[in-house]
């Protein structure tokens, strides 16, 4: 009824190639962004409902945004280019530690530059660890990327230079000063993360629509066929590794600077890598929107489930709750995969299709 593009004509190539061809999508996205950028801070200032507390920002929104950014990065590699990676945590760690060192050792560098340079370092290492992908495929590659994960876990524990010789090896984020804007309150941190995520989501969306993105997808769908068609696997795969690692690296720097404030290598361990892969698979491979949905599901569901018994006043010991959270999360993952193996993004697509036809199913 409302969601139908009848009557929207495209009169130019530019309109045909626009990022959101349907007007309703543009309006919805505009509203969503307006709510995220203006509505949420306003609600926080007014103290409406749970937006009045730090909790929603510090424990839910900020980690959600940053992990969604990392998931977008991983989705480029795994979802668009078909290279399964379990090294996400390592690239986050590289981004975090590299940014830390840039900020520490070149104090005149603006913080934004440090963060982007951190992403750049992650991209370089990503290219290096991407080279085996030219020969190793599928799950063998996934296990091989664990080499990067464990190697960098070790490097950041052992090489004291990276942690500025602190006795325990844990480091602290610098002051978050972006060209005079000192980010400190939860709402400001949220805004910062939101800006990064919006910018990178837009960049990623445009990349995957363009020439390079189509090369990635060709490689994903069948690399030998793509090669025969004249796509160079070396260039396509390594560029996917570079772009993906760059975004993950930036997300890592944000995770360390904006979310944690003080961290140790354990913050980026193997669990983080798995978590990112879950987000991408559950959200939907090859979908930017899916990265957000997957991040929301994997991050927020356990937190939510954890609080249900308490909120409803059911007396239950924390270990029972924790076990139940495990079981229910696992069961939901399994049932979601059974219902829709291609994740939330596909479910969303189906819903959109239904909405277009509604209320007349034919």
């Amino acid at each position, binding site marked *: 009824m409302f969601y139908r593009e009848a009557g929207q004509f495209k009169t130019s190539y530019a309109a045909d190639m626009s990022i959101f061809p349907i007007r309703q999508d543009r309006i919805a996205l505009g509203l969503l962004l307006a709510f995220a950028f203006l509505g949420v801070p306003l609600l926080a200032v007014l103290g409406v*409902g*749970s937006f009045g*507390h*730090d*909790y*929603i920002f*510090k*424990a839910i929104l900020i*980690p959600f945004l940053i992990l969604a950014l990392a998931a977008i990065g991983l989705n480029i590699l795994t979802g668009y280019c078909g290279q399964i990676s379990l090294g996400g945590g390592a690239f986050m760690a590289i981004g975090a530690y590299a940014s830390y060192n840039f900020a520490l050792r070149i104090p005149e560098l603006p913080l934004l530059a440090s963060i982007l340079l951190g992403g750049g370092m992650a991209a370089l290492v990503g290219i290096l660890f991407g080279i085996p992908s030219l020969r190793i495929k599928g799950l063998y590659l996934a296990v091989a990327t664990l080499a990067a994960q464990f190697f960098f876990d*070790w490097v950041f*524990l*052992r090489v004291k230079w990276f942690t500025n010789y602190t*006795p*325990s*090896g*844990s480091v*602290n*984020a610098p*002051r978050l000063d972006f060209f005079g804007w000192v980010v*400190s309150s939860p709402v400001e941190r949220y805004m910062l993360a939101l800006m990064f995520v919006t910018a990178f989501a837009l960049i990623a969306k445009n990349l995957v629509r363009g020439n390079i993105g189509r090369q990635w997808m060709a490689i994903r769908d069948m690399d030998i066929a793509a090669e025969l068609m004249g796509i160079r696997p070396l260039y396509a795969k390594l560029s996917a590794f570079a772009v993906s690692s760059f975004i993950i690296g930036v997300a890592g720097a944000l995770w360390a600077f904006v*979310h*944690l*404030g*003080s*961290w*140790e*290598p*354990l*913050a980026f*361990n193997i*669990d983080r890598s798995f978590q990112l892969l879950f987000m991408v698979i559950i959200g939907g491979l090859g979908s930017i929107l899916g990265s957000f949905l997957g991040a929301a599901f994997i991050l927020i569901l356990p*937190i*939510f489930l*954890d*609080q*249900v018994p*308490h*909120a*409803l*006043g059911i007396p239950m*010991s*924390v*270990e029972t*709750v*924790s*076990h139940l959270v*495990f079981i229910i999360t696992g069961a939901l993952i399994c049932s979601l995969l059974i219902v829709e193996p291609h994740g939330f993004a596909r479910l969303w697509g189906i819903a959109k299709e239904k909405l277009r036809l509604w209320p007349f199913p034919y």
Partner: protein
Amino acid sequence: MARKSWVLAAAAALVGAGSALPAAAQNEQFLPALVYRTGPYAPNGIPFANGVADYWNLVNERDGGINGVKIVFEECETGYATDKGVECYERLKGKGPTGAGYFSPLSTGITFALTEKAPGDKLPLLTGGYGRSESRDGSVFTWNFPALGTYWTAADVAIQHIAKELGGMDKLKGKKIALMYHDSPYGKEPIALLQERSKLNGYELMLIPVTHPGVEQKSQWLQIRQNRPDYVLLWGWGVMNSTAIKEAAAVAYPRDKMIGVWWSGAEPDVTPAGDQAAGYKALMLQHGSGKYPVHAAIEKHVYGKGMGAAKPEDVGHVLYNRGMINSMIGVEAIRTAQKKFGNKPMTGEQVRWGFEHLNLTAERIKELGFEGMIQPLRFSCADHEGARMSRVHQWDGKAWKVISDWYQGDDKVLAPMVKETAAKYAKEKNITPRDCSKVE
């Protein structure tokens, strides 16, 4: 229809979980407990959490709360994971009429993360026996209270004990001491002190890291077998401890030459190794295992009413006692704060004041039923550790037996290191240290 009602119920639950908290009674002190009763470190996390809960229940049941202010507490499962711990902290910090009194995360990683957050929220962190060693310097670390002892104190006492076994500090010269440590900030904390001491006392320090979680240690122990260090200091947590003891037995390294830190000296560390653990020694965070008058009170008032958290036979285990002492220090800090601010629920800021002015005298400890477990503690602006005392106990195959006198961490070595590292931290974080001579 059925589906719709399900969705509605879920939405209602979401709203409930997100915002509306039941209106709390005004005369309640909310205390959060970050626990890990599941996951890889659960065997060590469970007894500690039980001790914490039982003591709070005791205060409620026997005394009707702290000077009439009832303790309300809520556990939050962290699974020893830093991000989960931070989430729990954010979830619990604002609950109750005055917010959380203090936090006690029982994980070095979570402690580091919260150290950044606590000053902004004005919440004290009680990290009895763990956390940053330099955080004992209260002029820089206003909100941290590493009560009872830091890792540097522990390392110092361990070296003193070895020296005593050898027959004097001068006998350390030329000896070889290995540190086998959990490869994380926790395990790396003592290295700085051991290196400092090795310069001073002339022993050779061998560093042997064990990767988390420490299920496989064959190469580490073959290294020890080949290098034959005179002593092995064990700085492990969870499965790493029992595995180390078993592997030590397998390579026939004498268990009585192994000294664990106080996080490597409890029942879950030795029982999986069975008889092979006999002779193994560990530092005590002042206290050991066993029952004291306070346990009788707990058995009567808490277990007698069926409110006990632990299995009755586990009451009095090392980590259980540690949880209890942890709670006791927190409760006494609140009591101290109430003396200044009145007998009502305290805010985090007031509890912090209470910690800093807490003076647990021998009489008070006896009154509380802890005599023999701990020594007097006195905190101040400059000293957030309270005391630097420790003993050594040994597992005889059935129970922990105290085998040494009290040692005191040597401040000639410790104080300059604390000062230097704390100053570095202050500079990095742009903190102006408080002038402790001016703090009342």
